[in-house]
């Protein structure tokens, strides 16, 4: 790639500078500046690899004592009692999944609809402002979402939670709570934390789905319309099949963000270390919120346990996001286009 092109003397018929078929060979002789440039760019690229590697190594090394002392119990124990010598992340994993699930229940239908609205329904003059708005919403710091959720959203969600519990609880046992009359038994629940996280990941899901929808081929769209399809008919037969892997990828990227969301969950929940099958009931916990709440009072084995929890979260989000990346990139190459 280095590009000082130096013709090797005058073209003799044989000897150096000429290949076996008598063609002149041009060789690059990189200058020192050139060599430095390539080396610098390469080392910058390598340093990102090194940083990622270091994250994994430091977490793994730090977590080793805890993993060694707890063994497989680290993944199956649900209590966190480092003073007593037993701790594990089972309930934390369950809580993380529960919150992520509620987040997706809110964010996926809403994000899907909003993405369709922006790419298919919105008047042309509104499209660009709406795209900017979604990007801006993704840039709003999560601490601001956390305040909004704590001081505004929670109060309104309480009535919904109470309604669900009182009216649907008799039929669906997982919606029951212990004291259905008092509003305080509905605060700080996995349901509320999940919906707040859902609002945080909404712009992520929307922007990925919108991008894929807007890439649906114009020819096929026009074909569907010309055959007499309604707008929804065109979307159902052209836009959604074309964007299917974008939809899946967007959902998974949203899940990845939801699993790692810390501040919103930490601000809302009251920590608890039990398997809850009643998501409307007060009390839950996630890995990220647990790390944020315990790091300062932990030392020794307890801290090592937190690093282990961080390692599990790191591995979890890495897997989810890599899969999502694969799915989305496949859709961009147009491999999913079959109508």
């Amino acid at each position, binding site marked *: *790639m280095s*590009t*000082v092109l130096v013709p090797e003397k005058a073209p003799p018929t044989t000897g150096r500078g000429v290949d076996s078929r008598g063609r002149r060979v041009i060789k690059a002789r*990189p*200058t020192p500046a050139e060599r430095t*440039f*390539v080396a610098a760019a*390469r080392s*910058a*690229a*390598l340093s*990102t*690899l090194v*940083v*990622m590697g270091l994250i994994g190594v430091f977490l793994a090394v*730090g977590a080793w004592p805890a993993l060694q002392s707890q063994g497989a119990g680290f993944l199956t124990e649900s209590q966190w009692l480092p003073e007593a010598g037993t701790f594990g992340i089972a309930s934390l994993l369950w809580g993380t999944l529960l919150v992520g699930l509620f987040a997706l229940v809110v964010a996926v239908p*809403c*994000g899907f*609809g*909003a993405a*369709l*609205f*922006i790419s298919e*329904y919105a*008047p042309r003059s509104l499209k660009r402002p*709406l795209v*900017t*708005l979604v990007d801006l*919403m993704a*840039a*709003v*710091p999560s*601490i*601001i979402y*956390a*305040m*909004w959720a704590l001081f*505004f959203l929670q109060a*309104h969600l309480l009535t*919904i939670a109470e*309604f669900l519990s009182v009216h649907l609880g008799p039929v669906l046992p997982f919606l029951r709570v212990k004291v259905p009359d008092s509003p305080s038994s509905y605060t700080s629940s996995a349901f509320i934390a999940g919906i707040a996280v859902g609002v945080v990941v909404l*712009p992520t899901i*929307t922007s990925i789905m919108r991008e894929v929808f807007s890439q649906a081929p114009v020819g096929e769209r026009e074909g569907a319309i010309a055959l007499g399809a309604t*707008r*929804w008919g065109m979307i159902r037969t052209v836009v959604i099949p074309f964007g299917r892997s974008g939809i899946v990828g967007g959902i998974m*990227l949203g899940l990845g963000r939801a699993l790692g969301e*810390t*501040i919103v969950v*930490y601000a809302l929940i009251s920590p608890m270390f039990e398997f809850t099958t009643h998501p409307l009931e007060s009390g839950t916990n996630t890995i*990220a919120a647990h*790390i944020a709440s315990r*790091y300062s009072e932990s030392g020794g084995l307890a801290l090592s346990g*937190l*690093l282990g929890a*961080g390692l599990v*979260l*790191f591995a979890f*989000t*890495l897997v989810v*996001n890599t899969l999502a990346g694969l799915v989305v990139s496949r859709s961009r190459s147009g491999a999913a286009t079959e109508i």
Partner: protein
Amino acid sequence: MATATAAPAATRPPRVRIGGLSPEVVTHVVAAGAGSLALVWIVYERLLPLHGAIGFWLVWYVVFIVMLAAVSATTLDRMGVVDRVVGALVTTAGMILVACLAGIVVFTVLRGKQALGHLNFYTETTAFIGPEAPLDHGGIYAAMVGTLEQVAMSVVMSVPLGIATAVYLSEVRGKLARLVRSVVEAMSAVPTIVAGLFIYSMLVLKFGQERCGLAASMALCVSMIPVVTTTAEVVLRLVPGGLREASLALGTTQWQTVRRVVLPTARAGLVTAVLLGVARVIGETSPVLLVAGSTSELNYDPTHGPQVSLPLFVFNQMRLPLDQAIARAFGAAVVLLVLVVVLFGLARIVGGRSPGAMSKRRQRRMNRSVRGESL
């Protein structure tokens, strides 16, 4: 057809409008809305033992969709009705998105207004006052200093690294490019709390460094590098290949091409990349929470002692059960929000220019230098 040829202007069939709202749609929507409102008001408020505004509007929405389908069925076939109902649902989703953002901004500004009116809010710290002190004492000066220093340091560390990586990915295109690209993508997905935990375990536990602003800015780098790299790579790819080839054809080295042609052409986009990176990290709370330490005092020195920053200030104050503290938290949140919006707007304005387009000032300067050379 015969009449059309005889008097084309008079009897031309009405133009078919595709898109836009026809009077029929408007009538149907208004009718369904009003009808469902009346029905739900009677049933929900008067007949059933239910109450609450949210429940009312949820029930109204369901009844509205049903009524819209019923009203549309008077003029449309089944497919048309489905089309209209889906249109209503999708439009609602878009409105929810806009309402969420508007709600968050308006709510934060309304609650923060109280604290923002006091001048001392910007010039004092909360170091020597109690959390219950009135709003004309104490402020966010220490937090602003901390944010400025930490963000500046993470810019200094991650922008050269990010842009050099982008140059490697799009210009040098070595063997590692694919691997690096997917690792950078994975890096952007690392939960910020894990980034904080990493710096905590490396600096604080391994090397015995105390918690400080420098550690916080290193934790921020982990989130900033992938943003800068991916944005910069996209921007560099937009530089026309003809420019590169023209430069190489003049006999320059690749380094000269990148320095004199590619980077100057992409300058606006690179500025956008930096601004987006700053907007991303300026509000990060969880990594800073772990490694910046906790204080309310003013600390100019990022290498020693705990240093507070704006998101950390918001977080600490909002957890106090006192009206003044919460008002301060909202005030600081508004400052943070304004910073993010300004950075974002700047990035849009700068990035809106096509690659190579020059601002007026740069054009004048260039004209002057060209004239100077020709003299």
